């Protein structure tokens, strides 16, 4: 498969990249790990005239601790995120999700920022980003701005990143000491989730004192299951309260029907997986 012809530029700084983006406007596409963009080009579903490769901008890569957040550079490959001890310690939900994302090859090429910027409603990182209340740092002509996860995902494959903007990094508020579980439901291992539930829970003295729940592939964007969170906080960490809260996982969802399952089936799955994810996150086993 051969893409349509395009010109290619690989800037070495963020400023140069932004300038190139401004210059070529909607004729250009940003290339991160290429794991979503290259298939699109090769299948000729899109034919941008310019490809702006972020691969040589070192400042976009890396993971650091900054106050009460873990900051992940947009160009950090999934494999690095998945093996990072800081992420595991303070945002275990991300580690759990990355472990189930695609296959080894894709995890070495694909990037954290690229996956989130792509905003596939079935992408494995959207649910965790919403459950953890991630903050997106976006660079544009006017400098940097920050967008909350709640506002970042706009629609199917659409985010708050403007046409001449670049996602620079993602700040994940620390959830140190929280339990987490990513319940990904697939037919074959290397698949995007048919439905997935990202849950992180803080239990203190047998009571749930904090909960973050994100749903993947249950609508045109990743969804934060606020109803579930509300139903849970203040309740005992028991199978009964998890089951009751899981019933609210369907709120605000609008799941697709596709080859892997009907909307009706996904509504059912979301509840089962939410119950299981909560129980596992709280250390109660499978639920």
């Amino acid at each position, binding site marked *: 498969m051969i893409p349509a*012809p395009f010109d290619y530029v690989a800037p070495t700084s963020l400023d140069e990249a932004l300038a190139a983006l401004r210059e070529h406007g909607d004729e250009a596409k940003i290339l991160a790990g290429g794991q*979503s963009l290259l*298939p699109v080009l090769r299948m000729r579903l899109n034919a941008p005239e310019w490809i702006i490769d972020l691969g040589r901008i070192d400042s976009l890569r890396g993971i650091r601790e900054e106050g009460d957040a873990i900051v992940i550079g947009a160009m950090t490959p999934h494999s690095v995120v998945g093996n990072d001890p800081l992420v595991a310690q303070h945002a275990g939900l991300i580690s759990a999700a990355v472990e189930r994302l695609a296959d080894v090859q894709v995890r070495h090429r694909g990037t954290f920022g690229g996956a989130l910027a792509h905003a596939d409603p079935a992408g494995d990182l959207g649910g965790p980003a919403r459950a953890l209340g991630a903050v997106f740092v976006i660079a544009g002509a006017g400098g940097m701005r920050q967008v909350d996860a709640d506002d970042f995902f706009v629609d199917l494959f659409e985010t708050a990143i403007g046409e001449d903007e670049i996602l620079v990094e993602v700040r994940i508020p620390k959830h140190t000491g929280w339990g987490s579980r990513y319940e990904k439901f697939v037919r074959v291992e290397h698949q*995007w989730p048919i439905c997935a539930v990202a849950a992180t829970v803080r239990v203190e003295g047998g009571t749930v004192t904090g909960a973050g729940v994100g749903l993947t592939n249950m609508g045109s964007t990743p969804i934060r299951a606020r109803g579930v969170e509300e139903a849970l906080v203040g309740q005992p960490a028991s199978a009964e309260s998890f089951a009751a809260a899981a019933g609210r996982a369907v709120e605000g969802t609008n799941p697709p029907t596709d080859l892997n399952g009907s909307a009706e089936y996904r509504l059912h799955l979301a509840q089962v997986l939410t119950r299981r994810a909560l129980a596992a996150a709280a250390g109660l086993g499978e639920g």
Partner: protein
Amino acid sequence: MTAVEESASPAPALEKEIGRDRRRKEDARLITGRTRWTDNITLPGMLHLAMVRSPFAHARITGIDATAAKQATGIVDVVTAADLDESLGVCINAWPITPEQVTPGHAPIASDRAAFAGEIVAVVVARTAAEARDAAELVEVDYDELPAALDLKEAAAATAENGGALAHPDLGTNKSAYWVFDSGQAGTGGDVEQAIAAARTDGIVLEREYRQQRLIPAFMEPRSTVVDPTGEQITMWSATQIPHILRFALAATTGVPESKIRVIAPDVGGGFGGKLQQTPEEMIVFALARRLGKPVKYTETRSESLMSAHHGRDQWQKLTLAAGRDGRVTGLKVELLADLGAYVAIVGGGVPVLGAFMFNAIYKFPAYHFACQTVLTNKTWTDAYRGAGRPEATFAIERLMDELAAEVGVDPLEIRQRNWITHEEFPFTTVAGLEYDSGNYEAATARAKEMFGYDELRAEQQRRRESGDKVQLGIGVSTFTEMCGLAPSRVLGSLDYGAGGWEHASIRMLATGKVEVVTGASAHGQGHETAFSQIVADRLGVPFEDVEVLHGDTQIAHKGLDTYGSRSLVVGGEAVVRAADKVIEKARPLAAHLLEASVEDLEFKDGRFGVRGTDAGVALQDLATATFAAHNLPDGMEPSIDAEATFDPVNFNYPHGTHLCAVEVDTETGKVTMRSYVACDDIGVVINPLIVAGQVHGGLVQGIAQALFEEAVHDEGGTLVTGSFVDYLLPTAADTISFQIDHTTSPATTNSLGAKGVGEAGTIASTPAVVNAVVDALRPYGVHDVAMPCTPERVWRAIQGGGAGGETPGAAAPHFDESTGMSGTVDRTTGADQ
């Protein structure tokens, strides 16, 4: 000069090669890709093609405008059907299953009407592949959409009168051929209708309908063809399983004499039947290379491969089984509808006929009736796919035997034992008229049960049922047999097949004592080079490393019928054995001459002719050198000990085995997880256990994939929705478990190796084992069938009381992207458009 050993002690006996776990010689080059895949071939001045394909399942072509495309950079030409004469040739159907078969003509390029989505309507020729593909986008084709025949049952019922959609309106029907076998008429058994009538009054009658979903062979290497028209012969390299048959078809349909065509199948990356075809693409490359006088290459994209290389399976199977109350079967009636797709492929119509002989499987059914209607639709053509007809048959009967066991209330293995042929009864002539030469179903079953821990798992299943466990355990049985080693030429003749079933081999003893074995079988991943080397090493007593196996080139292997139907070892391997024996016999007088002994006093052992009772002897490899020099040969002897042999089998062979599968079903989500899988196969004598394990493992995964994962789905317009590997779900190692395999051995009596085919066995056996396990897990919920693939949603719906789980969602409600012409559900790739 020839070393005649006078007193030297004889060489130590070579370790026997047959039965050894030899690593495959060919793997280093195949795995690293440092080899001659067709797409790796580059010739001076070579031109490249890109195909313009119909996006519609059925449409009249009202105009093709290639003006813009012809002006694009690097374009040599844009060609439509109108530009080519009959030297383009046609795609042939080599197996018209009845004299009345309705067979639409199949031109490689559609001229006025496209009959499936993916059919070629124009061809771009350019200096580079990239330029060809760019220009292909500029070819404007106007279509008038026509009603498409898509649903198999509806297509079978459609006529010109009732206004149903016809795949080819000029034919007036979608029905291609109706093929019947009846044991009463054939004299091989009784009358089925009587058996059914009797069972209705006193006995059991089971009526079931099963769907064999459409599958895509999905070989690893996409198809590729290079044709070089320069030189005396036109040379075609193609990623094909059938270089010899292809050469014949090219000659027969283009008018180019066979002697002027050389076809080479270099290393070929898998086929599974999917490269057993004479393809439109090959015909087009051949024609354009001749027309332009330059080498031409075409390599398909993966999407083109999934859409236009032939598909497999796709049948509705209606079965009526009559049995006594004790579960002894008294008759089986089978009525099939088989989807041919838009054209009758090279052996497409014959695939269900191959299954006709297998529905009675390992059982002693007194009466049997089989009828099959092949049907044309506006979908990709179908043809052989690993097992070709036999997996379908095996699935149906093994599912039915489980149903019968449930009806009678006995264990599924018990019901089989009440009906199977016992080992004392071989050779056994079946109700379908085949003679099974050997087998021992009792032994394979006993061994499989032991490995599986059958009784313990049944006990666990009971416990889970009683405790209402959310995860239920199911145990599936498949006691399969199959007919393979295609095929006795006479039998093929009686079935109106267009060729024979023999195989050819020659052995060339080189001057240095090395051995070249030439086979007409055409390996595409099976490991022939290793297995045949082992056979020859033993037979001629030469080191394994000294044997080179050559194949896949009609100029090197001048005769052959290629590789499919688990035939290479049992037919091709036997030809090799016979050629080797001839080499020994040709060498014997020379040995006697050099040893100054009489021929009668010689014995051939471990690669050496020795004079009985003495230490004198001469090695076969040294005799090869002696014929090269030819200084001292017996009077009148030709200076060669090379030999060739052609072997035509007298019978098929009949691998069998007992497969046991345990699955866990998550009743909350419907997800099926494999827990354990045991395969105890009887494939006769095993030449290389490692290769056999590879064939069994790969075969099992392909069969399991039909049960759980794979399905080619079309939308309402006839576009393939599963057009990439995002949607066509191939399992990987991560989706399977560690299989436990073992063998029992009843040697085949129809080849001197005692071997039976193993290429398809795993695929044939495993599908029903898995589905039986799923259904077995769910019987307490009143479930007696789950349609394939047993997706989580289907299983979940079955548990909710939804019968067999219904249609694949999304097939009926597709999302069609106007801008891309791509159909999909949520298309994982459209995002970058935003």
